[in-house]
């Protein structure tokens, strides 16, 4: 049984068919790269997995049980986390508020439930420390942080509640070289802890170095399912562009 | 320590302020609370109060609020004025009820209360147990009736045709009294004149002009317009003249303000029932002084209104003309 099994997912927005029957699997402790050209349907597919979009047809199962009927909040509680490209941070709130957004611990006092700020701060600090991230202060609005620091907060949020699967949407796109290495190290660490990872990225070098398997989306279908150890840049690029102009595209990618 | 500082600061400041004893005395001051000074009517009344106070040699302080709709704000100002312990409060209430709590406190403090311009309702005052020293003002129902009388004098008692009434702000008692006074007397004197519409112009010149336009479209044979104040009457004048019906429609306003006087002299507005606010303000102060000094005063003083027309102004013999500002 796979950790996450996506079968026959279809989705259209009005007249535009984005996904026509995507099959896709991730095992525990497996890192799967999800690549494809712009508009291939990667983001739509992941939003269907997290529950932000509903699917027209098909199923999404976590550990064998369908989660399609569940809200985004319920899916998070089951262990499906996503780190968005725009990070989805509340910029005027502090680190703890962002990490615990939507699942704040509460203390009951005279029949009323109050947010437990102390616990939040302590756990947030512990998670930031575990990630080895450097933040100017934990009680400041995250909007005052640098891009890399904000990313640390977004990652900390995804990891705080013992996720089973973490989806990362372009986690390295806006980072400096040194920070990219940190993210790739983190992915390997997650694999060792038995967490499934889906890595969406345009940086094929990163994908080739960090993943176990690469799924290529093309025109709303899973066009290729490659084992990373047995493939190379040219093959991946060829699948992305749909077989034609393979040499030229690969050459372009190599130059880049 | 640092985290307690803001609370501590606030607490200390609050305690320091509480320790200071009650308000200081300011003997003999008259508190005057107007609606607003932002229109010629209230401006003239304020001027009358000022001149009256100077002539009588009394101290006064005058307050007004930002608009004649700021009912609660006027109540708050009224409460604040009591802090200065005036001997009398001369109040022009925005509604018949908005100042009630303040007037009660004033009464408890032994402050004489004057209803300037007759905005308070005697029945409500009695229910609340508030005794005012006197009320002074024009009778708004009578002003409306005078307007009707003048209209009938122009058109004839057997005249027929549609008439438009432009009321004040929806919910405002003054406008309602004027409009009702007009309608009632018109019905008595000239049943053939039919009020085809009675609409709120919200004291707004532009709105009154629009209403007049609309009704002229429906009733091109309109013979008369009564507006609950001059501003709206002047708006109606513009629409009537723009429709090419200048001189064919009798247009009457209320207040007798300077714009209206000018328009009457130009032969555009037919008449205005002048309220003589200057005289109201002046007499109010003079009468309060008498009451404070222990003299008996009448409980209800009605300052007469005057129908201003071109003829009256050209003749210049009417004694009340002096008070038309």
């Amino acid at each position, binding site marked *: 049984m796979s950790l996450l099994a996506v079968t026959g997912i279809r989705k259209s927005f009005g007249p535009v068919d984005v996904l026509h029957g995507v099959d896709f699997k991730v095992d525990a402790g497996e890192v799967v790269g999800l690549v494809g050209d712009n508009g291939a349907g990667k983001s739509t597919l992941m939003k269907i997995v997290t529950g932000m979009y509903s699917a027209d047809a098909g199923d999404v199962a976590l550990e064998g049980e369908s989660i399609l009927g569940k809200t985004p909040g319920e899916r998070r509680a089951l262990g499906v986390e996503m780190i968005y490209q725009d990070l989805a941070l*509340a910029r005027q709130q502090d680190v703890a508020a962002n990490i615990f*957004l939507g699942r704040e611990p509460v203390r009951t006092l005279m029949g009323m439930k109050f*947010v437990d*700020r102390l616990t939040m701060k302590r756990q947030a*600090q512990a998670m930031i420390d575990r990630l080895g991230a450097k933040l100017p202060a934990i009680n400041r609005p995250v909007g005052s942080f640098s891009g890399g620091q904000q990313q640390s907060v977004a990652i900390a949020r995804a990891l705080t509640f013992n996720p089973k699967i973490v989806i990362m949407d372009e986690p390295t796109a806006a980072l400096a070289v040194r920070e990219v290495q940190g993210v790739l190290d983190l992915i390997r660490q997650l694999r060792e802890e038995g967490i499934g990872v889906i890595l969406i990225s345009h940086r094929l070098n990163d994908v080739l170095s960090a993943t176990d398997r690469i799924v290529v989306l093309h025109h709303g279908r899973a066009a290729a399912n490659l084992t990373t150890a047995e493939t190379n840049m040219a093959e991946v690029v060829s699948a992305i562009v749909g077989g034609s102009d393979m040499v030229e595209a690969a050459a372009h990618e190599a130059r880049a | 320590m640092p985290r307690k500082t803001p609370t501590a600061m606030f607490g200390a400041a609050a305690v320091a302020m509480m320790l200071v004893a009650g308000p200081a005395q300011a003997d003999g001051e008259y508190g005057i609370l107007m609606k607003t000074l932002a229109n010629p009517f209230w401006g003239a009344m304020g001027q009358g109060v000022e001149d009256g106070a100077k002539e009588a040699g009394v101290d006064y302080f005058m307050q007004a609020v930002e608009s004649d709709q700021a009912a609660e704000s006027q109540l*708050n*100002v009224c409460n*604040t004025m009591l802090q200065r312990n005036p001997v009398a409060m001369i109040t022009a209430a925005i509604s018949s*009820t908005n100042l009630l709590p303040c007037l009660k406190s004033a009464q408890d403090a032994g402050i004489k209360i004057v209803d300037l311009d007759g905005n308070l309702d005697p029945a409500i005052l009695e229910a609340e147990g508030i005794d005012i020293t006197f009320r002074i003002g024009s009778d708004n129902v009578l002003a409306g009736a005078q307007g009707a009388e003048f209209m009938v004098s122009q058109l004839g008692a057997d005249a027929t045709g549609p008439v438009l009434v432009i009321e004040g702000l929806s919910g405002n008692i003054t406008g309602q009294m004027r409009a009702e006074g007009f309608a009632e007397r018109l019905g008595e004197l000239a049943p053939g004149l039919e009020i085809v519409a009675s609409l709120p112009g919200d004291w707004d010149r532009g709105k009154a002009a629009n209403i007049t336009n609309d009704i002229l479209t429906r009733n091109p044979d309109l013979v008369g317009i009564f507006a609950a104040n001059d501003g709206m009457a002047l708006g109606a004048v513009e629409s009537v003249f723009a429709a090419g019906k200048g001189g064919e429609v009798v247009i009457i306003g209320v207040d007798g303000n300077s714009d209206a006087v000018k328009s009457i002299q130009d032969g555009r507005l037919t008449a205005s029932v002048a309220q003589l606010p200057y005289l109201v303000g002046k007499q109010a102060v003079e009468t309060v002084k008498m009451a404070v000094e222990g003299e008996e005063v009448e409980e209800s003083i009605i300052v007469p209104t005057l129908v201003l027309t071109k003829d009256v102004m050209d003749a210049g013999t009417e004694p009340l003309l002096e008070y038309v500002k």
Partner: protein
Amino acid sequence: MASTEPRVKLPARGLWSRVQARSIEQLHIRLESLVVLIALAMLMAILSPFFLSVSNFLNILLATSTIGVLAIAATFVLSSGGLDLSLGSVLGLSGVVGAAVAVKLGAPMPIAVLATIGAGALAGLVNGLIITRAYVPAFIVTLGMLGIARGLALIISDGRVIYGLPQAMVYLGQGRPFGIPMPVIIFIVTAIVMHVVLAYTRYGRHTLAIGDNENAARTAGINVDFHRLTLYTLSGALAGLAGLLFATRINSGDPTAGITYELTAITAAIIGGTNLFGGRGSILGTMIGALIMGVLQNGLNLLAVQSYYQQMAIGAVLILAVFIDQFQVRKESRV
């Protein structure tokens, strides 16, 4: 030692900065606004011999109570990134409904009180339903409700003040247990409860998060539409409470009550540090904002300054408050 708070040290920037940071974190207020309030009070005390007295202080609180309750509503909606322009009209409508139920139908006091607040909540619910179900912008919906509620108030009351509420109701507006006006007590209790809700409950924290980044709130599993619906309903209910205070204070339902109050309420919230575009706001801050306006008005009244100047002064304070705030935010983001 290393594990507890190694990187959480507040930047060592002197006592003022530290107190500032603490007051935001612990009390959710900006210290500047408190300083402005105290300075203003001291100035008025120097300028007017009538300012410093218990009765005048109660006066200020009494004068602030209606607008203060409305400003609480404005703070909740604004900090969620929303807007409620119908507050003043809903206040007027609620007061008229309450007065009509009490006077014309002769209902007992608890029913009339419920009707007053319920009328406000219902208007707010309608706002919320249209905003969250029909996706009409809040500005438009509440602007429409501004007209609808006012018109309805005039229709129900036939354009006239409905006078003569039952004594038990009037007590809410005019009673003075222990010498403290009832509206002041209701206002302060409401403010404390709502402060706790906004600052210390999940509901309140989610309100701020939605105003900060709606998308982030959605991905965090917050039911944003339902949350907004409850916020507009809450806003309407608070406007109803303000309408109750207004009506019982003057012993009548006045259909013209509360015209332009929404703008005053929003002004108080913003002077108190609420972000007009959402994500930041606190009820304590708003109370300080409302009191700054109250003290300013009271002081200028005591000095017999014409009302025209008062409007200018409040306008200037509003701009100044937002200027100081922007300055602070920029300073912070330079860390």
